[in-house]
């Protein structure tokens, strides 16, 4: 019996973590050595003549060179989008628009394996997640919004829904393909044309999507995908002929965008940071709650804006929950994202790893108790052990600030009112989770928690039919579902 001297019991999980490698094959996906800008239906060299490297965060090897779009390129893309909007897309019967969107959805499905491999190579997320979540959900978004294209009059009865014009869309590095789908699908369904910029670390799947869009024979200029860093994004935001900005990313950049478009008639939806509270009551199914917490914070290495990074556990079950969490942490397989068994892959970039490590240090300095899984990390690449902190206070920085990594801050609470107050005590309000066997308690909390999405007895569940978006500094506007259409139309009647 595994009984240590101090009378504590411990289960052993080393063999559960050490399985024979089961790598997905890199050769099933084609990555070009260099990618240009996708403008007006063609791949074009950037006016800047500059390219930057995109690396695989799991190995630090270079994957490809990506074009850096400057203001002239952005202008060209916006012009192409304007011409496509005026001449073809807004005039096209909605049912015809729908056919193109359906076609994109089907082509993503057909090339799902290739997309999954590239997403994992470029971003570091486990192949299991790209394969089972990112790519299928991206296809689902196109399918879903294709269905709305010719039904807008039912979405907004007795009103006339007109497109906005050109949507400038800037997306983050955590779900590159999925965020592109979230942005492009509703914009096209509503009759807008698009200039989209993926995050500079993770441009590859957006460029693969551009290839599909080209093959799908979408009229040139309807979707333009241009790559680059912050300056490229700023050029899109500041371009006078862009009618709408859709941004997903940090609260900091969200504020810059708000300032930039103040006084213009540009519309905007911003989906920004979060510090979600996951709340476990003592009548919750504890093992499933623990699994939900694990999913909530370690899904995609914690690079999720709605990650459940603050855990509140009712005091009477606190010790049991923490013990279960620690055991579960030990069984998480950390390592090569291309291995089909990997649960936690590579941190997206060195910069992000530095930020996470900074917060881990802050947590220790603040006097919180740290527990990390005993998994061995690969020598090369950017990796972080799944980490939990107990003995955390509401005033701890690790409980207040968004870390965007696999780091969980755990606090205890005594009463319902107390936990509602604590959960709402955050500048963010993107998501929350409630774990209890009691339905009435769920409804009580969902009406009082100030968060855009509240999951009950589950976490991190996404569906194209369900709206997503934040309160407070987590942004405004909703994506997904019927609500997601509103962000891309003007109601003129």
């Amino acid at each position, binding site marked *: 019996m595994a009984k240590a001297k101090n009378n*504590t019991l411990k*289960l052993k*999980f080393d*063999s559960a973590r050490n*399985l024979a490698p*089961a790598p997905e094959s890199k050769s099933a996906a084609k990555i070009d050595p260099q990618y240009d800008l996708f403008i007006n239906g063609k791949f074009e060299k950037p006016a800047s003549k500059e390219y930057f490297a995109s690396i695989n965060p799991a190995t630090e090897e270079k994957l490809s060179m990506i074009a850096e779009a400057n203001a002239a390129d952005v202008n060209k893309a916006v012009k192409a989008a304007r011409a496509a909007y005026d001449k073809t897309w807004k005039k096209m019967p909605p049912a015809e628009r729908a056919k193109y969107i359906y076609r994109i959805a089907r082509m993503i499905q057909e090339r799902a394996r290739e997309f999954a491999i590239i997403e994992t190579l470029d971003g570091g997320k486990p192949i299991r997640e790209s394969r*089972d979540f990112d790519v299928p959900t991206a296809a689902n978004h196109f399918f879903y919004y294709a269905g709305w294209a010719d039904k807008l009059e039912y979405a907004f009865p007795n009103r006339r829904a007109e497109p906005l014009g050109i949507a400038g869309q800037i997306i983050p590095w955590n779900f590159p393909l999925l965020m592109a789908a979230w942005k492009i699908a509703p914009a096209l369904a509503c009759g807008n044309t698009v200039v989209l910029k993926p995050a500079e670390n993770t441009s590859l799947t957006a460029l693969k999507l551009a290839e599909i869009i080209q093959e799908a024979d979408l009229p040139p200029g309807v979707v333009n995908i241009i790559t680059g860093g912050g300056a490229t994004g700023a050029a899109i935001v500041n371009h006078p002929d862009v009618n709408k900005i859709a941004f997903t990313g940090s609260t900091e950049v969200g504020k810059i965008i708000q300032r930039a478009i103040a006084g213009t008639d540009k519309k905007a939806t911003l989906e920004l940071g979060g510090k979600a509270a996951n709340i476990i009551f003592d009548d919750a199914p504890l093992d*499933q709650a623990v699994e939900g917490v694990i999913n909530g914070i370690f899904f995609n290495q914690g690079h999720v804006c709605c990650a459940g990074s603050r855990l509140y556990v009712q005091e009477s079950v606190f010790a049991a929950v923490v*013990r279960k969490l620690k055991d579960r942490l030990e069984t998480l397989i950390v390592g090569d994202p291309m291995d089909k068994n990997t649960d936690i892959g590579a941190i997206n970039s060195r910069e992000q790893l530095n930020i996470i490590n900074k917060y881990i240090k802050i947590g220790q300095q603040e006097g919180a108790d740290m527990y990390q899984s005993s998994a061995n990390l690969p020598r090369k690449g950017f990796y972080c052990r799944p980490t939990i902190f107990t003995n955390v206070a509401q005033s701890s920085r690790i409980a207040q600030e968004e870390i965007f990594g696999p780091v969980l801050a755990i606090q205890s609470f005594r009463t319902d009112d107390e936990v509602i107050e604590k959960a709402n005590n955050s500048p963010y309000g993107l998501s929350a989770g409630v774990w209890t066997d009691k339905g009435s308690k769920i409804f009580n909390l969902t009406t009082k928690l100030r968060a855009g999405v509240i999951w009950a007895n589950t976490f991190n569940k996404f569906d194209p039919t369900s709206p997503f978006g934040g309160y407070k500094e987590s942004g405004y506007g909703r994506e997904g579902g019927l609500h997601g259409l509103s962000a891309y139309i003007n109601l003129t009647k």
Partner: protein
Amino acid sequence: MIATKTIPDFSIPVHVDQVGIEERASRFTKRSIKNETKINGLLLALNMIDLTTLEGKDTAGKVKQLCYKAQHLHDSYPGLPTVAAICVYPSMVKTAKLALGDSGIKVASVATAFPSGQAPRDVKIRDTKFAVQNGADEVDMVISRGKFLEGEYNFVFDEIATIKEACGDARLKVILETGELVTYDKVRKASDIAMYAGADFIKTSTGKISPAATMPVTLVMLEAIRDFYYKTGKKIAMKPAGGISKAKLALHYLVMLNEVLGEDWMTNEWFRFGASSLANDILMQLMKQKTGVYQSANYFSID
């Protein structure tokens, strides 16, 4: 955790979320088991089998053949382990014991008016004692599901404790018959009752009721074992039975075991598969790993 031995109040509801437990169970099936991990897993699974025959038409001849198979799973593959045990009715225990000799393979006997358990307690005790006196190393009892569903938890508890006493040195497996309990909450409660009442093993099913063992049900029971271990310091063994006939599924179960209870449970002392046709599928997979091609089922004996 500091070990305590207080018996909990079984009238307090326990909570298992159906969606959550099924989702978690399906996660184990996503593990990709390859190469040496696969071969080790298959050999271990083979070694964990309780090779079973529980039919009204069982004869001494049939049981002897099964006992031979247990010791000679596939002689053209040298170095194979044996199965863990032979599982038979009490009337066949003597025959099996004799046939297995000093092979080290255990004889497990079902008892307590298996499979329904609808008999008076003294009959069940007598049934158990008969099996043990005939040489059974392990006793597989059934709980009184009717009483359990009536909420007579103390009755169920006392019955298990009484049978445990009748077992003497034989290890007691308590069959919950999860297919008749239906909900995961009830499976969890029955598991807790069985363990506190003295079970050495908890076992899903008789194999006579469908559904028999499933991964989510087994997961509920493994989690119960883990929580019991942390509370009492006592290890309980697990036996899913019925419906596990493919090697791949057996590997999924082992992944689950390894990730819930850890490597201390990864032996046939602490985990068994109750199965009759699983062994041959595992043998077929092992031969495939060795030779690179699948062989016809005709090459594997059907005892």
